[in-house]
């Protein structure tokens, strides 16, 4: 626990990627496998279900600290985080624990689930009394299921690769899918041989950067295949060992949520993995993303919603065929096999080969792109002929070329009350994006674009997640992501971001995106006129 709390502090202390990877690598090199397994589990954002309600944690901590409830609340308002507030309020500690992380998690934390309240209280007080302040903080984070330290899965993967001397792309693949945080798992994760037993496991998604400036800079238009960029849920449909798995890009197994697509599995040959997009689709046309949002998050789907928002899988790529990994093959070869497969399955209302957009010049391509909105597409995807299917985001072979208006996924970082009839609600928002050092920098303010119901939800979020007050402005925990649209963009030394945008507005709430995946200043700079 001591080393893990130190790791947490080290990660928290720096904004530099290199230093984070270094700290992680050092940890993984010396941690016992059982600890390393849990560390990976928590660091990449997995969490056991909350075992103790945070209301109770607050109550017991306030009592232990001798602080009345209202003063706990005031403290919480200043801190913005229960785990941290509790760590700061508890009486100073003389102790610090030597017990390993795995011991704390397996023998102290997990048994709390379902224990009666008194037993839980004793266990919490026991833990707090055994720990120093940084350990208490990390423990509270683990208990409340809100463990986040601002490292991406990619960084953890890199560090694991370094520590174990394994190719990080192999680590990335092994980290996908279902696994239990055991010493055996760490052994398999860092094993030299790549024999793979978990047949549910998806491949890491290949992701694209936005086109910066003039696409003609990408070379001849003939070197590229263009497809529509769809606005749905990127997913992988996998058929192995007689089972079907549908994974979302957020690495969630969503097979049961989209039964229309799951049933396709039976028609697929053994050892198949298709990369595609789940798209709401009715009477031969895609529906707006807002419709699909009605299904996201629902574990079970009723008849009504199935009838109103049916979905299809738009097939982009074939990653595995006959159990063989095709990712290193040229794009056209994979696409040809995919086309064959889609034709063979022959379920045109469920599985659709992603249509290509053909143009003989960049001008013609640009003209085609303008039509994107008319069929609910966001623009074009450009894929280089001959390119492999990369792991994660790599510059060069895949580009997204969105239609105007410019759109950006930004994080809500501050809010202010509105005026007039909305004076009691927080309706004026400040949005931020990630700068080159992975810090959030304010980038635009926007007031309009949400429905009343959404405004009410954001308002409630702001009230619960205030961090600081500057006059009427409340900074909030950077958690919510919104897609913003704007018309013009220019350099501005007066703005902290160095960029000013015209008519920013909220397009939609990206409930599907964590703050870490919001856009970067770098990608926004790419939208600047040359």
């Amino acid at each position, binding site marked *: 626990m001591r080393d893990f709390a130190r790791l947490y502090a080290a990660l928290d202390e720096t904004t530099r990627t290199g230093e984070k990877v270094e700290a992680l690598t050092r940890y993984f090199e010396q941690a016992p496998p059982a600890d390393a397994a849990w560390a990976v589990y928590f660091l990449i954002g997995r969490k056991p279900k909350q075992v103790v309600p945070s209301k109770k944690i607050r109550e017991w901590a306030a009592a232990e600290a001798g602080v009345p409830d209202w003063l706990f609340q005031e403290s919480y308002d200043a801190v913005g*985080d229960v785990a941290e507030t509790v760590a*700061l309020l508890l009486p100073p500690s003389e102790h610090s624990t030597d017990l390993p992380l795995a011991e704390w998690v397996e023998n102290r934390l997990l048994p709390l689930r379902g224990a009666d309240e008194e037993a839980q209280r004793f266990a919490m007080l026991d833990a707090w009394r055994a720990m120093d302040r940084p350990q208490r903080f990390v423990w509270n984070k683990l208990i409340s299921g809100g463990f986040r330290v601002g490292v991406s899965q990619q960084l953890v993967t890199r560090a694991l690769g370094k520590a174990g001397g394994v190719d990080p792309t192999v680590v990335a693949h092994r980290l996908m899918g279902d696994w239990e945080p055991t010493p055996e798992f760490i052994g398999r994760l860092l094993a030299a041989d790549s024999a793979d037993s978990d047949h549910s496991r998806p491949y890491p998604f290949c992701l694209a950067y936005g086109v910066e400036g003039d696409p003609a800079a990408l070379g001849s238009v003939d070197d590229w295949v263009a497809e529509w960029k769809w606005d749905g849920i990127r997913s992988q449909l996998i058929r192995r060992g007689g089972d079907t798995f549908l994974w979302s890009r957020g690495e969630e197994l969503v097979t049961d949520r989209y039964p229309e697509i799951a049933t396709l599995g039976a028609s697929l040959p053994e050892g198949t993995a298709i990369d595609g997009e789940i798209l709401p689709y009715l009477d031969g046309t895609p529906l707006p993303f807002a419709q699909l949002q009605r299904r996201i998050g629902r574990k079970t789907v009723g008849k009504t919603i199935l009838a109103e928002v049916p979905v299809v899988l738009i097939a982009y790529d074939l990653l595995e065929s006959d159990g063989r990994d095709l990712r290193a093959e040229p794009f056209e070869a994979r696409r040809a096999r995919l086309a064959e497969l889609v034709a063979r399955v022959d379920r045109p209302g469920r599985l659709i080969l992603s249509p290509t957009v053909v143009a003989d010049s960049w001008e013609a391509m640009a003209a085609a792109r303008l039509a994107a909105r008319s069929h609910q597409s966001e623009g074009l995807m450009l894929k280089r002929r001959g390119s492999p299917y990369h792991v994660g985001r790599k510059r060069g072979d895949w580009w997204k070329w969105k239609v105007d208006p410019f759109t950006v996924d930004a994080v809500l970082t501050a809010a202010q009350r509105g005026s007039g009839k909305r004076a009691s609600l927080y309706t004026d928002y400040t949005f931020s994006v990630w700068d080159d050092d992975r810090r959030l920098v304010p980038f635009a303010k926007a007031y309009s674009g949400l429905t009343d119901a959404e405004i009410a939800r954001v308002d409630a979020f702001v009230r619960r997640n205030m961090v600081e007050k500057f006059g009427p402005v409340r900074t909030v925990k950077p958690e919510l992501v919104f897609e913003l649209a704007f018309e013009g963009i220019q350099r501005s030394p007066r703005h902290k971001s160095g960029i000013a945008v015209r008519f920013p507005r909220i397009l939609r709430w990206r409930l599907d995106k964590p703050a870490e995946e919001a856009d970067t200043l770098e990608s926004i700079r790419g939208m600047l006129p040359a």
Partner: protein
Amino acid sequence: MNADDLLKPTDAGLYCEAGDFHVDPWKPVPQAVVTHAHADHACWGCGRYLGSEEGERVLRVRMGREAVIDALPYGSPLDVNGVRVSLHPAGHILGSAQVRLEHRGRVWVVSGDYKVEPDATCTPFEPVRCDVFVTESTFGLPIYRWPSQAAVFDEINAWWRANRDAGKASLLLGYALGKSQRLLSGLDPSIGPIYTHGAVEKLNRAYREGGVALPPTSYAGAAMKGKGWAGAMIVAPPSAHGTPWARKFAPLSTGIASGWMTIRGTRRRKALDRGFVLSDHVDWPGLLGSIESTGASRVLVTHGYTAVVVRYLRERGIAAEALATRYEGEGDAQDRAEAEAMEEAEAQEVDAGGTTA
């Protein structure tokens, strides 16, 4: 507030009618009694200032050569129109004082800004018995509990050493008057050379002349061009962060020392490499302890978490009230005041050039 209170809030600040003077006014008045030289407590342009002897030099740096300053040693009383006035150490910065007023058997103490833990750059805080105690509440929440200063200096020196070993400069931010000198006093000069921003260097001189031992420092501006800064420590006010001036030290690691760094979110939002928890204000236990040791039957709470502290004290049976002032705590307001002071210091850069020891 009551009609016969010894001090009453007015437009210009806390006014003592019996003695016809203001304590820490925020507008120019004929006679000001000032607790310390920070911009929110000592305003420009008063007719006369009464302040501590220990703080005379720094007050002079801030109020200008023309200012009329009467200096009073700690603990020695002065009769001002029948009000017995004396100054007592507040432990906040060099010369910071609590103002004790005695009139017709009533004793009031205005503590200004204060801190309980002793440090090397000023006379430590002394509790003063009184009937009415006026206290700040900048860090008036139980989450604020300072780690020992020795532990924080160890952290700072370890950070500096690690930066040096990585070939980087260390830029340490703290407000120019008080915090900077306290930081300097805790630095280990065997690690590397120490440089300061002009605004800091100017006050260093006043501190050294006042008998405070500081490690040797050089004015960073004087050695600006083409110099390698690897391994150096540069102490500067927070407003220097992100300026072209600060970028000249690259590659560098930037840290800040402030009580606000207690909170992780604040540390992260400041987007600096390191945040050190070091404040010249009283923390929660210190606040409660000080109030108790004054024996005051009535407590007036100013700048900070005023409402919180008032409510907490009342729940414990202490008569407490909020007192509206324009004093500001450590933080952005302090930064603003510092930024002004800095511009002023930059205008006089030539004046502060060269090495002092």
